[in-house]
């Protein structure tokens, strides 16, 4: 059972998607094809500090990189069906831009706000992307949209950031002129 999943079932007050102050478990595994069973990093200090490096560590915890089986192999055996890692070390969504030949992937967890995300996307696709505003209309040629959990395509910026990152399945940067208000 994936230890990281406990968070999702926790009862909490607050908006879905809002996080409490979680202990910083920095991810160490590679972002793209992550081992679904990637474990929280076990502090190897636990065995070192005591001076007795031979005391067997708690059996429930998993050690990073042990046994030495390539994470690629681990993933395959666990019957990982989708090629998108879901939990733990990243929240990757595909990003397509109208007119660009290649898709990219972004890790939404890396960004803390729409502003940061847009900046990242701009660097990635080398273009200017602006949020739509009721008053001013489109500030640029490109408009960022996303597909949410229900399959609807929405404009970026409508919902609070925390809610957005949990519901966003995929991003698409459209030409502003092609966006149709629904």
């Amino acid at each position: 059972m994936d230890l990281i999943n406990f968070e999702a079932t926790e009862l909490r007050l607050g908006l879905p998607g809002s996080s409490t102050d979680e202990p910083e478990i920095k991810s160490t595994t590679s972002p793209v094809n992550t081992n679904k069973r990637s474990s929280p990093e076990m502090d190897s200090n636990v065995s070192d500090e005591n001076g007795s490096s031979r005391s067997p560590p708690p059996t429930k915890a998993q050690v990073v990189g042990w046994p030495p089986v390539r994470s690629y192999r681990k993933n395959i055996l666990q019957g990982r069906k989708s090629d998108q890692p879901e939990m733990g070390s990243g929240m990757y969504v595909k990003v397509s831009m109208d007119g660009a030949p290649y898709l990219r992937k972004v890790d939404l967890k890396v960004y803390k706000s729409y502003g940061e995300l847009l900046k990242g996307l701009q660097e990635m696709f080398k273009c200017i992307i602006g949020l739509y505003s009721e008053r001013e209309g489109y500030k640029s040629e490109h408009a960022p949209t996303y597909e949410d959990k229900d399959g609807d395509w929405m404009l970026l910026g409508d919902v609070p950031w925390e809610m957005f990152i949990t519901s966003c399945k995929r991003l698409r940067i459209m030409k502003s002129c092609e966006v149709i208000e629904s």
Partner: protein
Amino acid sequence: MSLAGLARDAGDAGDYFIPYPDQVLENVLENVLVFLKSRRDRNAVSLVCKSWYRAEAYTRSEVFIGNCYAVAPRRVTKRFARVRSVTVKGKPRFADFSLLPQDWGAHFTPWVAVMATAYRALEKIHLKRMSVTDDDLAVVAHSFPNFKELVLVCCEGFGTGGLAVVVSECRHLRVLELIEDEVFDDEVDWISCFPSDGPSNLESLSFDCVESPINFESLEKLVARSPLLKKLRLNRHVSVQLLYRLLIRAPQLTHLGTGSFSPLEESNNENTRETDYVSAFAACRSIVGLSGFREIAPEYLPAIIPVCANLTSLNLSYANIDAEQLKPVIRHCHKLQVFWVLDSICDEGLQAVAATCKDLRELRVFPIDGAENAEGPVSEVGLLAISLGCRKLQSILYFCQQMTNAAVVAMSKNCPDLVVFRLCIIGRYRPDHVTGEPMDEGFGAIVKNCKKLTRLAVSGLLTDMAFSYIGQYGKLVRTLSVAFAGDSDIGLKYVLEGCTNLQKLEIRDSPFGDSALRSGLHHFSNMRFVWMSSCQVTQEGCLDVARQLPRLVVEVFRRDEEEGGQRGDFVDTLYMYRSLDGPRADAPLFVKIL
């Protein structure tokens, strides 16, 4: 200065034209050296004298770079001018197990940039554990008009978009092998990008690691117009029905990666199913290597029986099958030399292997479940059986939960040809589960009895005694992997002082510190690299090494990319290697070079 120029000058002076004696010698030498392939021999030749150095450099057509940071690309292209094949290895092996941070380095970009102008006649690129971008692949496609072979092993950073550029523009491409790479799914239909005019030169196409679906119709057409195709390794998106369609088009194959080896859900025709596949395999008279079986439906496995008698290599390491499913197949594999399998076959399955595969040279048994349980499907029973049945064994990688010294000792005596012995007891610090003793004696016997041993990986409960044996007897050992083992600095000292041929040392989570590190000062410059993570070396100890060995690049970092490299009192990860060109310029912020 050309010979023609020399002749002119000499002629003008009214003298005979006598080329410099060196020049004659060099010409002769060049014609001889062209036949010399071995790297070691060539290195020896280059040391004889300057003229031999030049001749050797001029005739070396295959360059091997064991560590991309050991030498700058320009130094290589300056010395070796007429290169047709380049092999470059990047990240240390522990990167495979998430012990190296993502952005550590090993970029192919500076290499390809330099080679693009220096090696216009380049035909082959072979990379292992390098970071390769789509742009790099584009440079390859555009820079080498004669490009023929691209082999990428354990690489990352590129996607199907990059592949599309390579296959569409490298008109002479014969070999494209993607082995255990991480390939971005850019949703580009790269298989359709192979030129479709006329027959293709394709001899080998491996994409079993590519996770994205492929355009099967294009693949089928490609196979149909590739009469020279010998090796085809499909990814898991090719079902067994689609495999059938390819098999009947390519009966000349010698190596096949079968894809998922399970049917698409909608299928169902009990009657024709087995017969068709069996005869399709039967028609492939040349198959000697089988792999794939990514999502195997075990009832299809018997279809491969017609080719078993000729198989020299069988990779079932993604196939979750048990002993009963293996036996009907393995009992035909008399010629098998290389066998990779999951421990789901249990000791019983290994016994079946031992009974038939008398010619086995290489065995790898991977774990289905990496958790540290008490029980495991394979044990000393399987190891013993293999040692008794497969006397010609040269290489073994064996994952198990528990082991006994007796079985390891038996293997050391029954399989004297062992060159590679890698035993991974998943339960850390586990002693011999029958006697309760450390595994020292078992590994001791291996280094003592297997006189050809060059690669060793140890595990289980090990005291400094084990390392004393390794240092004493492991004189040919070049690669040593240690994890969760040893008592004190003495253990590592034994190794560094005793293993005179040690090239690659990788250690994790073992109580070796500065004093042990210092005992290797005389040898580090002869090694490719040393890796020590979660051990007890300090910043000062590493600094000391860096100061005393200026030709060594000493990197210190934390796995979680926090700056500074320390975890408490000790260095988190130490990675050091010799380099002709000093510390690298592309080290990320979290890497400290001392």
